[in-house]
């Protein structure tokens, strides 16, 4: 062997040994380095109660920051094709810090159940828990009622065991019924109302279904929706109730056509019956039939449908 080759041998040996050592150590080290990184994410986030104190009064600002951070982590989890374990803790902390911050509630089902790995039972239950928190904090947020209702009634039940599924379907139907009562620009809402009615009926909530359909009818002018709602209502009630309901609808329609045909049905509901002022002047006259100023009085006195004026 040439002398120059022998002189180079230790150098090459060291280099090969070094490369081998790096190759052998890199894999496990990388793995153990990444694991604590993911774990730190969980442990570095303070508990919701501590976060409130830590925010020093700037609760909304901290909630905003954490929400932006969560969206980044959510996106990065797709790059890593891994489940971001701290999602619920983030959302819990954000909604504790700013309970009336609507966006996190609207994104809850996406962030917890649309993940790169299949969602677990706890993700669906956590989603429902956060939706309920949102509905409590924002009771007039129509879109939130709709989102929570659709998720609980249609998406979650197919992925959870039956006892949970039944409960979720019922809660979802009630949320959708509530969404129907609130004002919205969403042209699709009346169809949601009909769907909610079907769900309530299927779950044995007949009274709730009748109440909801009655409300849908009283605020909706769309003939197609009215036809669908009436069809379901007719199936749900007995003949006597059906007659009573038909008479009430006819009486209301006649008041509408006679008094304020130029306004919508909803507007008429808000205005109330219009008494003839010259006939109803004075204390005694105010109590006579035809002088009612609210729909409840009008229903009880004039049309004779006790308890159904609302």
């Amino acid at each position, binding site marked *: 062997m040439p002398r120059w080759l022998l002189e180079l041998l230790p150098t090459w040996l060291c280099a090969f040994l070094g490369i081998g050592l790096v190759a052998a150590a890199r894999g496990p080290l990388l793995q153990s380095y990444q694991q604590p990184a993911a774990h730190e994410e969980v442990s570095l986030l303070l508990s919701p109660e501590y976060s409130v104190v830590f925010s020093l009064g700037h609760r909304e600002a901290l909630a905003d920051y954490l929400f932006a951070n969560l969206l980044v982590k959510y996106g990065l989890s797709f790059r890593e094709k891994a489940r971001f374990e701290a999602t619920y803790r983030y959302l819990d902390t954000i909604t504790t810090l700013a309970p009336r911050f609507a966006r996190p509630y609207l994104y809850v089902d996406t962030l917890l159940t649309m993940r790169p790995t299949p969602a677990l039972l706890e993700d669906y239950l956590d989603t429902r828990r956060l939706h309920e928190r949102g509905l409590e904090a924002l009771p007039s947020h129509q879109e939130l009622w709709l989102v929570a209702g659709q998720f609980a*009634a249609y998406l979650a039940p197919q992925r959870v065991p039956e006892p949970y599924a039944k409960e979720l379907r019922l809660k979802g139907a009630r949320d959708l019924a509530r969404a129907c009562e609130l004002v919205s620009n969403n042209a699709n809402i009346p169809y949601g109302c009909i769907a909610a009615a079907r*769900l309530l009926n299927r779950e044995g909530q007949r009274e709730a279904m009748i109440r909801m359909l009655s409300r849908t009818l009283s605020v909706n002018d769309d003939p197609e929706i009215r036809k669908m709602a009436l069809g379901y209502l007719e199936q749900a009630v007995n003949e006597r109730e059906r007659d009573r309901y038909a008479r009430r609808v006819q009486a209301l329609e006649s008041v509408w056509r006679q008094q304020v045909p130029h306004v919508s049905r909803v507007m008429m509901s808000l205005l109330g019956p219009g008494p003839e002022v010259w006939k109803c002047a004075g204390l005694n006259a105010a109590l006579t039939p035809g002088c009612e100023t609210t729909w409840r009085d009008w229903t009880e006195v004039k049309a004779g449908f006790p308890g159904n004026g609302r």
Partner: protein
Amino acid sequence: MCIAIAGSVLGVGVPAFFRNLHASRLVESMDGLERIARAAAERAATEPVPTAYPASVGPTPAAVPAGVALRDPPGSWDDPTWISLGFGFSTPHRYSFEFESEHRGRRARYRASARGDLDGDGQLSEFSVRGETSEGKAPLTFPLEMHREME
């Protein structure tokens, strides 16, 4: 010395910043598909199988925004399908959405997809959800599908 440090900081920070920025925008597609899935399932629960899902509609907007958020021209989301799904955007956004449906016999199915090009390199990421319904059964929504999720 200062320039070297600033250069190093920028060298590390800028790519990470853009990576995070792109990652945060992914939620638009996911939330869009979730909205479509919820509305489609609700409609399928109300309507008979032949009309369980609204008709197919092509990519909206027609061209996937390349690396920028675009505001759609008026009327972009006026297609009856988008209206019946209650879906659309009034603010600038980065993904193009499509809805395909078919009805065969006693079964109807749909596929909603979102395509995006967040870095504007012409390579598209694609996400989709599928669902189906058949007579007498509750509508089903299948798990998310992804193709080149980070472009």
